[in-house]
């Protein structure tokens, strides 16, 4: 199964870093969609088939916390695997993300770390990469 992935971060450079790292994981990737804030990310979730979302916390318009709350409240994609990618250091905020069912990855991160997390939360494997 190739994963369709949504990357939500207000920094275009950070989105490129995440996408580059995703490609280095050697996991089977399908379409990768990008959004610069939570609101645009939610719109893409309604329009596209997405298997995994990587979301930043601090963003204008709609931040990561609010976006994840909306995801969990929507029947259409409430069980979507979510990874929060942030340099956030506040343990309280990280704990809150965990309670919302999101997995936290601290920036900077290696492709191997991202790969392990993606495999753990999606069950995807690179053994079947086409």
């Amino acid at each position, binding site marked *: 199964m190739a994963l369709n992935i949504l990357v939500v971060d207000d*920094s275009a450079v*950070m989105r*490129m*870093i995440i996408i580059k790292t995703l490609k280095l994981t050697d996991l089977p990737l399908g379409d990768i969609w990008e959004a610069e804030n939570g609101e645009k990310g939610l719109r893409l979730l309604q329009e596209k088939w997405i298997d995994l979302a990587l979301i930043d916390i*601090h963003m204008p318009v709609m931040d990561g916390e609010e976006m994840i709350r909306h995801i969990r409240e929507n029947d259409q994609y409430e069980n979507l695997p979510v990874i929060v990618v942030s*340099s956030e250091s*506040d*343990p309280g905020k990280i704990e809150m993300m965990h309670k919302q069912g999101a997995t936290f990855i601290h920036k*900077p991160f*290696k492709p191997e770390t991202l790969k392990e997390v993606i495999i753990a939360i999606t069950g995807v494997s690179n053994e079947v990469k086409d």
Partner: protein
Amino acid sequence: MKSKIEKVLEEAAVNTFEDICFMYQVPELKDIQKNLTLEAAAEVKYRGDYTGSLLIETRGGLFSAIAANILSIDSPSSTQKRDALGEIANIICGNVVTSLGRSKLGYKIESPRSLKKDELLKEKRQSKPLAEITMNFNEGRADIKFFVDDDFVVKEKKG
């Protein structure tokens, strides 16, 4: 002896350059790169129980190399170079503020700001950085300074 925050700053900076930029230090270049001219700088401010900033300066071609490595392109635009340096500063700062201790309200890290050369040279900082490191790469040099308000040092001494 290095302070705790200096060690954290060094670890965060090394990890960021290695994991994000795929760049590795070459300490042997320290003397050769001693007098390189400043080319760019970015600053990230943070607010929480303590306030301050992280400043990163690049010399000798590193400014362009960071963006080129991150984005895997040969000739990054000025905007891409500024954004890439700002992102590096943001990630390092996010890692270092943790070492100041837990903030009741959490730390808010502002968007990175690019500093022009003349602006940087004009800006004479009142306080000395709490931690400061220099990194030498084949592609140039980075100087990273972490500033915190003076009262932090006073509280540390009392505590």
